[in-house]
């Protein structure tokens, strides 16, 4: 039986929960967000990914109501949010600094938002207890924020923002302060909570692995603009630009001149060597005029390494190993091609160390299939 795929963005009958319509935000004459149009759907776990200062927090603050767009419109649940103050939005935010109230206990921090809803006392208490259980904080309910550890504080912040069961939860770099192991655990916890509560999450992160792990879709941002919005696998396998390819994971970029040939393009990239060939996949919209500048993006794990020239491979190039990075389960070979271009090839270490045939200064051949590389125009 086929499991229905969660992809409301491909379904034209779905109405988005959040719509950015041509939103621009300026601080003085600095443009933090530049003419942004973006749809986010109910129950999505949507990640904003980008380098520091690209405007991620600004996007969140406009959703929460702390900043107003200079131009354009933000619609949440079909309602224009212009002039709606933060306390009248069904949106809650988990702050980058957690912003726990230092004078209140963990219990009172979580109850704070509920008290503003005029609920009966027993309903409120039950909800707080539920949140404490969900975030495994029951033991710490009576402590003040400064009496618990960083990881526990982060869970209090999460519980507090979830307590009001908002339509939309905004998480601004929620796991930044945690060490790697705790961060990974918490990522799965977040995904569980998101699934169980059915809340729409928008998460800000500058950690691409984190975005890949948790998100249903990722928006890669640069200097106030979203460069690409796609599912994690599409962002990785089909980036729309060198910027995105380079930002997500490791990538080799080979620059050259493109020319239509057969089922795709031939890329002339160096003197005296055969051009590289890449097949054009069905549905790929890219079109480059003959002789136009193009970039081939190839993930290191898709590059095979050989001692002899491989037979029958469309793309094979020769080079010399400059460096070997041994990562335990993987090894990355840094290979310099004849024209100076560096290409990385990654192999899984399925054999023990002594048996592996490549080392520094070896002359080697690299190859990849004609569908492994992505052709990019910019």
């Amino acid at each position, binding site marked *: 039986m086929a499991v229905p795929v969660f992809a409301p963005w491909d379904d034209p009958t779905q109405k988005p929960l959040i719509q950015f319509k041509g939103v621009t935000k300026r601080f003085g004459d600095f443009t933090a967000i530049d003419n942004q149009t973006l749809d986010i759907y109910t129950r999505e776990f949507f990640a904003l990914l980008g380098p520091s200062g690209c405007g991620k927090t600004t996007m969140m603050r406009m959703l929460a109501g702390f900043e107003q767009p200079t131009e354009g419109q933000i619609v949440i649940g079909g309602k224009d949010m212009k002039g709606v103050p933060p*306390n009248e939005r069904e949106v809650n*935010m988990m702050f980058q600094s957690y*912003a726990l*109230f*230092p004078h209140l206990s963990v219990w009172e921090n979580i109850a704070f938002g509920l008290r*503003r809803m005029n609920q009966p006392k027993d309903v409120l208490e039950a909800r707080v207890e539920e949140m404490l259980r969900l975030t495994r904080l029951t033991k710490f309910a009576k402590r003040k924020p400064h*009496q*618990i550890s960083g990881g526990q504080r982060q869970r209090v912040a999460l519980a507090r923002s979830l307590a009001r069961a908002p339509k939309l939860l905004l998480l601004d770099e929620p796991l930044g302060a945690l060490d790697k192991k705790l961060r990974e655990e918490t990522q799965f916890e977040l995904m569980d909570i998101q699934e169980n509560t059915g809340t729409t999450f928008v998460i800000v992160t500058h950690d691409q692995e984190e975005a890949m792990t948790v998100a249903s879709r990722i928006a890669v941002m640069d200097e106030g603009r979203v460069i690409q919005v796609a599912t994690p696998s599409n962002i990785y396998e089909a980036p729309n630009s060198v910027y995105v390819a380079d930002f997500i994971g490791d990538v080799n970029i080979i620059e050259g001149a493109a020319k239509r040939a057969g089922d795709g393009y031939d890329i002339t990239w160096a003197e005296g060597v055969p051009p590289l060939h890449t097949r054009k996949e069905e549905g790929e919209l890219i079109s480059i005029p003959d002789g136009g500048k193009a970039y081939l993006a190839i993930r290191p794990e898709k590059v095979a390494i050989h001692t002899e020239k491989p037979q029958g491979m469309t793309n094979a190039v020769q080079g010399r190993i400059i460096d070997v990075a041994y990562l335990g389960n993987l090894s990355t070979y840094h290979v310099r091609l004849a024209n100076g271009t560096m290409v990385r090839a990654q192999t899984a270490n399925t054999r023990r160390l002594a048996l592996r045939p490549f080392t520094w200064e070896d002359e080697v051949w690299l190859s990849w299939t004609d569908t492994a590389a992505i052709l990019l125009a910019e």
Partner: protein
Amino acid sequence: MRRLSWFNVTSLTLGFAFLYLPMVILVIYSFNASKLVTVWAGFSTKWYGELLQNQAFLDAAWVTLKVGVAASTLATVLGTMAALVLVRAGRFPGRTLFSGMIYAPLVMPEVITGLSLLLLFISLGVDRGVFTIILAHTTFAMCYVSVVVSSRLVTFDQSLEEAALDLGCSPFSAFRLVTLPIIAPAVISGWLLAFTLSLDDLVIASFTAGPSATTLPIKIFSAVRLGVSPEINALCTIMISIVAVGVIGTSLATKRAAQRQKRDEQAAARAAG
């Protein structure tokens, strides 16, 4: 521990003697049995008893207390509001002028403040009395409160207030439930500072007090002009004790709170690690 050198011991002794010897003499002579201030005639507490019988002093003390509490409370409210505007409002036309004007009375000679208030009250036809002293003390004490409170607000993490808004508070309840409890220590020290300033103000009070209201400093000053009496010494000793108890009490409380916080944080770090 390093031994103190002779030079250090000497300067320490001289410094403290300079600061505290006058007060020590005053305290000692308040227990003098003789009516003559400069002649020691044995230990006695009779001047304290006489002080309690002196209706004029008691009246002045009562006025001082009323003025102090009312003026410092008003000054705290107004000063805190001014601090909030100055720290929070960002840039608005005339901000620099406004903040300069808030702080100017700090350096204004008291005589000028007092005189200008006097002229104001006269031109408005306000009868001088407790009410006018309260207004005058509020005016100059609120500058001090606003300095104390704004220095706390500068380091106040504004995302706390945003979190309160985010969780459904109106701006006013966010202030009442989050900002105010957190900056309370600064507001309280602002109040104490205002109270102390009001307690020992002589100049401004003399300008703005009417015949119907005399504060303790005015009373003491006019009494001393007729010669220092042991009663005055007793009164001053009481004032010194009140201030000393207040200062020592607050500093002990702050120290205890800081120690507790440190202990808690260490415990949390241990629990986490």
